[in-house]
């Protein structure tokens, strides 16, 4: 019966809700000393929501590339510059869950449809087992292990079977529809949508806690492949190998040798450079007609390819990202670079020694990504360099910014951007922040808001001189060299990589680890794969702190300092 009396429904609903919440545990309140739980509550976040890319990759790996995932994912949250860190801050909003539920059903429908069920389920009801319970049990156990990234417990199996049976009854007795409904429930589950970590006593350090084998498998896999653990990694988890140094190293090396490591590396570079923001970059078609729809996506791909080629495939020196003259190019971008290309799809071109471009700062993703729709912005570009590459937080501008010396774009006195933003430096209050940002951005002023080269602005040659941390430069090439040599750039990369890997904000207890990683990075000749491997194989990477530890380094994060420029 579907039409229940309102009151009965009400009673049932209230009771269900009360049971659901109450049974979720007598959770200790902050500051209270409680006894029921075996351990004090964890101080580090233990849940990380899968990013859209991770969700999609996981579904593809578990069910096959041909399973379509269509829907709008809840936007990921950038915390201190990283979506990976935001993963441990977000939950799921009602609108977001609605989307997950829709996607889950769509995926489940495909999995159980006649075209897929043989391969993905491989069994069904038989004369001996007309309800198909044995088949369903085997399926949920097998798939549940992949979905939840750990074996299902008995109550979880029981729930899935009960859901499948109830659905089968309601839907006219179709076994596969029943299984599909239960599968949709699992795909909507918190256990799938979030990486949920579990800690155990650390056998090597009395009193300390460390991630269990399944959690390690999950971390390794999402770090190195940006996807769910494959069967071999799950086996290594089950056997306990991941709890040993050698087992951990063996799996790390296996994953890093695979071509799939490129996915993990790209996901890191994408987050490090905040390339997802390019999705919201638009350019004025009248001012920059060469910047076509599709340019931002290709610009993102260009930078990712360049970094992957240089840092992963060639295992190159990280510092070269600022000075390398090799760049992937396609027919969408070549007109913006004013370069000839022999083919429209991806190829590699080399800037000549006298070209004004080298390194990521002269790529369209950076230049156009940190500009306005119709003009360049030295402040946005300088701020991006400070925040992304130097890990320096730029405070929000003061609310009542003093614009008495107003900048007027059509003022004949102010022909160049440098002249217009000079007021940032003339006013003491503004200069305190702007003197660190604007000079670097002004070095890039020979590239307009779409990233195209220009020698002049309004008929006047462009002055690209400046300095950072006492090092002078003139133009983009020299700025790249200055950043290449700047020590903070390296330590920022190390810190960012570590924050990305742990997927949370830093704590003071991470300092020792960071110190070791920095030293190792220098020693290795600034090799990024080496850095990732060191993180993945360090016991500290898997440590879990419980509530008695000191409070974490409090985030200084102000609002997303979108600023007034």
């Amino acid at each position, binding site marked *: 019966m579907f039409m229940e009396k309102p009151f009965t429904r009400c009673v049932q609903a209230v009771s269900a809700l009360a049971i659901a919440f109450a049974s*979720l545990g007598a*959770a200790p309140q*902050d500051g209270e000393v409680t006894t029921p739980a075996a351990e004090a*509550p964890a101080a580090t976040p233990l849940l990380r929501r899968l990013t859209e890319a991770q969700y999609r990759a996981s579904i593809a790996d578990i069910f096959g590339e041909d399973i379509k995932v269509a829907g709008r994912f809840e936007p990921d949250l950038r915390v201190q510059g990283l979506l990976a860190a935001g993963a441990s801050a977000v939950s*799921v909003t009602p*609108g977001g869950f609605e989307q997950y539920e829709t996607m889950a059903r769509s995926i489940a429908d495909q999995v159980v449809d006649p075209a897929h069920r043989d391969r993905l389920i491989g069994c069904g009801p038989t004369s001996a087992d007309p309800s198909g319970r044995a088949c369903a049990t085997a399926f949920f156990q097998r798939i549940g292990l992949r979905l939840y990234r750990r074996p299902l417990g008995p109550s979880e199996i029981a729930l899935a079977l009960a859901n499948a049976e109830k659905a089968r009854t309601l839907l006219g007795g179709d076994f596969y529809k029943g299984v599909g409904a239960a599968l949709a429930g699992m795909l909507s589950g918190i256990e799938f949508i979030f990486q949920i970590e579990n800690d155990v006593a650390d056998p090597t350090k009395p009193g300390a806690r460390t991630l269990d084998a399944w959690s390690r498998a999950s971390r390794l896999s999402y770090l190195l492949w940006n996807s769910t653990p494959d069967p071999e990694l799950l086996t290594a988890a089950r056997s306990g190998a991941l709890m040993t140094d050698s087992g951990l190293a063996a799996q790390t090396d296996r994953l890093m040798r695979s071509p799939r490591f490129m996915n993990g590396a790209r996901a890191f570079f994408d987050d490090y450079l905040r390339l997802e923001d390019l999705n919201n970059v638009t350019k004025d078609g009248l001012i920059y007609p060469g910047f076509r729809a599709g340019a931002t996506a290709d610009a993102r791909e260009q930078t990712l390819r360049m970094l992957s080629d240089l840092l992963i495939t060639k295992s190159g020196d990280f510092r070269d990202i600022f000075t390398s003259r090799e760049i992937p190019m396609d027919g969408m971008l070549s007109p913006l670079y004013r370069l000839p290309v022999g083919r429209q799809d991806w190829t590699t071109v080399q800037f000549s020694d006298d070209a004004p471009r080298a390194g990521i700062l002269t790529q369209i993703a950076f230049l156009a990504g940190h500009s306005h729709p119709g003009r360049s912005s030295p402040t946005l570009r300088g701020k991006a360099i400070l925040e992304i590459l130097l890990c320096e937080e730029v405070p929000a501008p003061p609310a009542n910014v003093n614009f008495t010396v107003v900048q007027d774009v059509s003022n004949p006195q102010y022909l160049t951007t440098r002249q217009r933003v000079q007021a940032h430096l003339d006013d003491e209050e503004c200069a305190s922040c702007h003197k660190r940002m604007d000079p670097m951005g002004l070095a890039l002023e020979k590239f307009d808001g779409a990233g195209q080269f220009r020698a002049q602005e309004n008929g006047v040659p462009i002055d690209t001189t400046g300095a950072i941390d006492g090092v002078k430069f003139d133009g983009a090439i020299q700025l790249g060299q200055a950043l290449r040599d700047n020590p903070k750039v390296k330590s920022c990369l190390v810190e960012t990589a570590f924050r990305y890997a742990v997927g949370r904000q830093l704590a003071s207890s991470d300092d020792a680890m960071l110190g070791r990683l920095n030293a190792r990075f220098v020693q290795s000749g600034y090799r990024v794969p080496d850095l990732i491997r060191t993180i993945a194989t360090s016991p500290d990477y898997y440590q879990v702190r419980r509530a008695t530890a000191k409070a*974490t380094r409090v985030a200084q994060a102000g609002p997303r300092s979108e600023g007034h420029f």
Partner: protein
Amino acid sequence: MALNTTRRGFMLRGMLGGGAVALGLPFLDCFLDDNGEAIAATLGGGRLPVRFGTWFWGTGVIPDRWAPTKAGAGYDLPPQLAALADVQQHVSVLSGFSVPLDGQANSPHFSGNIAVRTGTPAEGWQKIIAPSLDVLIADAIGGGSVFRAIDVTPDGNPRTSYSFRDGNAMNAAIPTPLEMYQKLFGADFQDPNAADFKPDPRYMVRKSVLSGVTDERRKLMQRIGAADRVRVDQYFTSVREVEQKLAMQLEKPARAESCRIPEKPADVPASTDIVKRSAAHKVMADMLAMALACNQTKVFNLTYSTALSDLRRDGSATGVHQSTHEELTDRKLGYQPTVDVFVTQTMAAWTDFVRAMASVKEGDGTLLDNMLVFAHSDVSFGKNHDVNGLPMMLAGRAGGKVKSGVHIKNGGDPVTRVGLTLQQVMGVSADSWGTGATRTNRTLSEILV
């Protein structure tokens, strides 16, 4: 994560006692009457639902050209409000209310807006201590319609939203007219006026698989930290909301006399050009009117432009935000001409919205009569991010509970007086709102009936 004790104060308010650390427990729809009406309108003796929504635009106005001088009914329309001429009787203007920052920094385009929406200013997303008022209102009245609330924006970016339970749980906006149509009138839409209704067992099935208590889930709650527990609770609250939506699909929807299914809109890419933005906005406003008339939701948030306002004109190197800061005041005119144009066009879009709601007949009046819409910006004068005299407007009469067409000319009271009034009108039990300098228990008597 830092332990934030001020947030805990607000968390405790919603507790069931004992184990549940629940935020704003969903108002169980079983406490509503058969037609799912929480607050009945008294208009024309009919029992029509009262809806609530917010309408947001970024970078404020030019105060001297926006705020009327005459208080009360029949107020004057300064140049930036000229577009309201035909709908003035529906719109109240609230001028002179301010955000006392109480020592906090004025985070540009942020602090003031958070104060308006949550009752207390905040310097950053992670420092927000309360849900936005639309969420509180949705908790109170959102049940009984298909969606507890709808968040939309014509700007193409799902992050353009100021509706949230906390700073990490922003309710993403539907960013295009086509997606809005697919969500509201797509596959799951049930025409409330359809002659026959057959409950679809698939909704029962969908609902039945969503929540289940397992040993693992119980253990999880015990071993995770306080911050994680909040997040898990949010997840289950969201599940619960979807379950309720599915339960509603199993019941014959109440008739909605004014419900007409709109046409599927074209798939036009979003634009930062204000003319194109206004065109997309109009499509969304018309669709929203139908969504309300068809009882798809009773609560909505429409963000016309973000707080930092990405609006510009095609062919112009400078957008409105930059203009607010960099455009010279024209000596002859006495104001910034480009900014003025953008504000005027934004107010025209607001007028489109009001008209869209007023053009739907409902009961003895219109849809707008049975609504209360709260329009506001993040600053008053964009140039210096002033949060004094934040521009705010109301439209509609909340089913007869408020007067419309009134200018309240205030002298600096906190903006929370507005938010408190709105919540009370919409049935949220709150006798005060805000904290510290923004705390108030005084409502706007000028508009209460």
